[in-house]
Every structure is written in structure tokens, then in C-alpha cells.
């Protein structure tokens, strides 16, 4: 883990760019998530999958980042989807009233099958 508590890694699976987040997403590091997604969308990626399997928890700063990035993806005719939204992280999406505001696609394998 970096001192910010969040590791952001990038991979590729066919046409899908997979961003893996590990650690926590909060007000001290959500800007890094925005910057990463902003750069990917700006570079022309059309299929981005955010894998949250390694996220311990997130706060409203993460919701803000994901909503901003989803809007930006839409404006650029790109898709931004989430996968591995489980356990406590799922509870937090639910508390935020946001389970229906994102494309949430089950496990990573399920998500890749759907996006490919």
C-alpha cells in the first residue's frame, strides 16, 4: 500500500481496459481516481472496467469521483463499468443510494464476458 492507502493498477483484456483499485478510497486520494479515469477517457479508451475487489472501504469522495467519471465517459461515448462490488463496499453504495446509478457487473469474469 502507498502512503495514500490506495493502489491503482491498470491492465487490459481484449478491448477492455481494467483498472484495479486496492485499499481505501477517501477524501485524501479520490482525486487520484479521477485523474486516472480522466486520463484513460481522454486517451480514447471506450471500455473501462473498474475492479473494486481489493477496496476495503470507500467514502462519499469515491462516489463523487465515480459519478464525475461516469458523466465524462458518457460525453466521450465510452463505457465505465464496475465489478466486484461486494460485502461492505456494496453496503456503502447502498447507503449512498447509488446501486442503480452505475453499471455494476458482478465478478470480473462476468464483467469481461459482458463487455467483450
Amino acid at each position: 500500500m502507498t502512503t495514500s492507502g490506495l493502489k491503482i493498477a491498470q491492465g487490459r483484456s481484449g478491448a477492455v481496459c481494467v483498472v484495479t483499485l486496492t485499499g481505501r478510497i477517501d477524501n485524501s486520494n479520490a482525486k487520484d481516481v479521477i485523474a486516472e479515469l480522466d486520463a484513460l477517457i481522454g486517451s480514447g479508451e471506450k471500455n473501462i472496467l473498474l475492479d473494486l475487489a481489493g477496496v476495503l472501504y470507500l467514502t462519499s469522495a469515491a462516489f463523487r469521483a465515480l459519478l464525475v467519471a461516469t458523466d465524462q465517459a458518457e460525453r466521450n461515448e465510452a463505457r465505465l463499468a464496475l465489478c466486484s462490488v461486494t460485502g461492505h463496499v456494496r453496503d456503502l453504495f447502498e447507503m449512498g443510494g447509488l446501486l442503480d446509478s452505475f453499471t455494476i457487473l458482478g465478478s470480473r469474469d462476468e464483467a469481461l464476458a459482458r463487455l467483450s
Partner: protein
Amino acid sequence: MLRSIELTVRNDLADLPAIHDAWERFGAEQQVPASVVVDLQVVLDEVASNIIKYAWPEGGSHNFMIRLAVCDGAVEVEVIDDGRPYDPREAPAPVQAAPGSRPPPGGRGIHLVRQLVDRFDYERTGAENRVRLTKRFA
């Protein structure tokens, strides 16, 4: 035997990780269940970041105080700032999305806090906002 810790925080988001680390260590020492430690990490991030972002609109460098106490199967969080008067219990509920569209990005922090704690008290005393949050775990 260690009952509470007190932190001084600057109005700078860069101080948030130190709050995280202090509570993680203290919560573990106090044998607070891991899920409760995490819930209060979320709460601390929301409350502290709001003060950092909104309490001193005129800017400048300011400090505020966080006290964390574990007692009788409950965690008590007290946050004291001398920024502008603000009662977070009165924050409006988040704006709902229009059908078929996404909701606006902000305005969810205090909404989460409300759901994550068992008590949410606020008092303005003198020039200070005092927020007191209680979460039971036993």
C-alpha cells in the same frame, strides 16, 4: 486502560491519512471489531473533510480537534472546530436522480454518517462547533 486519544488536525486534506492511521491503531488496541473500525474510518473521513473544505471559507491556516474514546462497548467521536457555525444534522438528504439520469456527484457525506452511527449530536458552544458521534459495538 488507554481510554481516549486526541488529535490536532490542520485544514488540509493531506492530514486525513494520519487520522486514519491513529484510529486504526487505537481501535485495534481497544479491540474494537474491524467492521466498526472501518465504519468510523468512513465517518471520520466525511466529518473531517467537511470541516477542512467548508468551515473556514475565508481560507488561511486553521486547526481543529478530534477526540476518540472507547468506553463501555461504544466508540465516541468528538470533533471541535472554531469555523463558521454549522449544524451537520441539518444537511439536506441527497438529491434524487431524475428517472433515467444520474444524481449529482456531491452531497452524500453526511447522509452516510447518519447511517453509520447510533447517535449524532451537535452543540454550538462559544465560538466552537462540537459534533459528537456515538457508535455502539457491544
